[in-house]
């Protein structure tokens, strides 16, 4: 019985030892996750500020507003996205994806929004990833945003573009709004094909519904302006060169 008692208590202490290893593993992992989550939150917060800044755009201040937005965006990348580089080496890139994905998506949203306002085109993932290369020193694998986060960010972009379009219509820039409308429709069309193929596609499915709502909000706004505009023309004639569909002064300046 003495031997048994020993073996039992030794098996019990073996268990304790093993569990202190597991505890160490979990603590390390949790701390790393905590750091990644914090970085992600900072990326989110600051990307949101960039988006906010873009929405300050008006007919007359485009250049200044976008310059500031781009400067801020670069700061987000250098100060916060960079924090992810050493954390996401090896399998951690995928293991901790949930922890950083919200931040990265918001960053994508901000980056693609800025780029659209500037160039009217979609910033592609390769370009974004190229811009991240300088963040890594040679000893690390470079941080490369994955397709899924890029697409999820793109889905949210359409919501911001909807707000932008509504704002532009208020500001009289109907053609700009129509350009947005086309662009967003095209993204929606592209994602229609890709969405169901994505990992854990249920998130994306919800985003697709929201995206369709956004597309339709833009379309309805364009419709509204169009039918209202149809009444305008007979009144003032097309000779009016200062023609603006709404032409409100820019309150937001």
């Amino acid at each position, binding site marked *: *019985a003495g031997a*048994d*008692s020993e*073996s*039992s208590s030794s*098996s*019990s202490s*073996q*268990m*304790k030892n*093993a*569990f*202190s*290893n*597991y*505890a160490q*593993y*979990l*603590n390390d992992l*949790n701390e790393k996750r905590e750091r990644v989550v914090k970085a992600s939150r900072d990326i989110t917060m600051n990307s949101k500020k960039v988006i906010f800044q873009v929405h300050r755009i008006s007919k007359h201040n485009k250049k200044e507003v976008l310059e500031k937005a781009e400067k801020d965006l670069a700061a987000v990348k250098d100060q916060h996205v960079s924090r992810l580089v050493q954390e996401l080496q*090896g*399998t*951690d*890139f*995928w*293991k901790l*994806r949930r922890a950083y994905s919200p931040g990265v998506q918001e960053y994508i949203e901000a980056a693609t929004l800025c780029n659209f306002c500037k160039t009217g*085109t*979609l910033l*592609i*993932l*390769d370009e974004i990833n190229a811009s991240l290369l300088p963040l890594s020193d040679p000893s690390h694998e470079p941080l490369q945003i994955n*397709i899924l986060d890029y*697409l999820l960010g793109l889905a949210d972009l359409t919501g911001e573009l909807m707000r932008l379009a509504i704002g532009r219509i208020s500001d009289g820039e109907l053609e700009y709004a129509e350009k947005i409308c086309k662009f967003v429709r095209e993204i929606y069309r*592209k994602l229609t*094909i*890709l969405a169901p*193929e*994505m*990992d*854990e596609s249920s998130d994306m499915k919800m985003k697709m519904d929201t995206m369709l709502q956004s597309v339709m909000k833009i379309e309805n706004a364009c419709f509204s302006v169009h039918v209202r505009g149809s009444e305008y023309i007979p009144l003032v004639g097309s000779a009016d060169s200062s023609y603006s569909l709404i032409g409100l002064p820019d309150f937001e300046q």
Partner: protein
Amino acid sequence: DKLEKQFEDFRHHLEDSGNLRERIRAVATEIDSTTRLMHSSLLLVHQTRPIPEVLEKAKGQIDVLRDLFSRIAEIIRECPGQYYRFHGDWRSETQTVVSLLAFMHWLETGTLLLHAEAQEKLALNSSEFGLDVEDYLIGICFMSNELPRYVVNQVTAGDYDCPRKVLKFLTDLHASFRMLNLRNDFLRKKFDGMKYDLRRVEEVYYDVKIRGLATNGELDGDKGIKDQT
């Protein structure tokens, strides 16, 4: 243009990973069938068949499992670094595997199957394709859920010493788990459930003890569940 090209590339990429996922899911389904067979054999333990007999059939499936896991490992080798991208596709099955292996191990030795031992049994290798620690821990929680029923049936079959042993084991296991700093996640929830197992076993031990049925083995001098076999 580059836009079209990007989305075209994406489609290929997603199709590829979709195929990979499907291949993994197919193996996972086979793991599921195998564990169901094992589970069904192990259920005989509640009918107090002799443990060696019960274990024999279940043990025969371990080789099958080993093979299935090596197939997943092989698939994952095609996409280095993406173990955790597809992890969700086999993790629930893996947790069941751990729970069964740990139950068998406990029936045989009266001790806890450690993480390293579980990997060994499945011929896994932490550096390449290992057993995720959290999956291991969740599997252990599942195993704990089986114990109250086991104790009840053992007592009915006349083994009055069983509650004492199981209580000792579960108490130690529960204390070990308390060393872990759990986040508010699935593992935490499963662990929280373990306290009900503990409580139930305490009650069974109480029922036996108060009727003077328990042998007077001391809790400290526990000799392990294996003795009974």
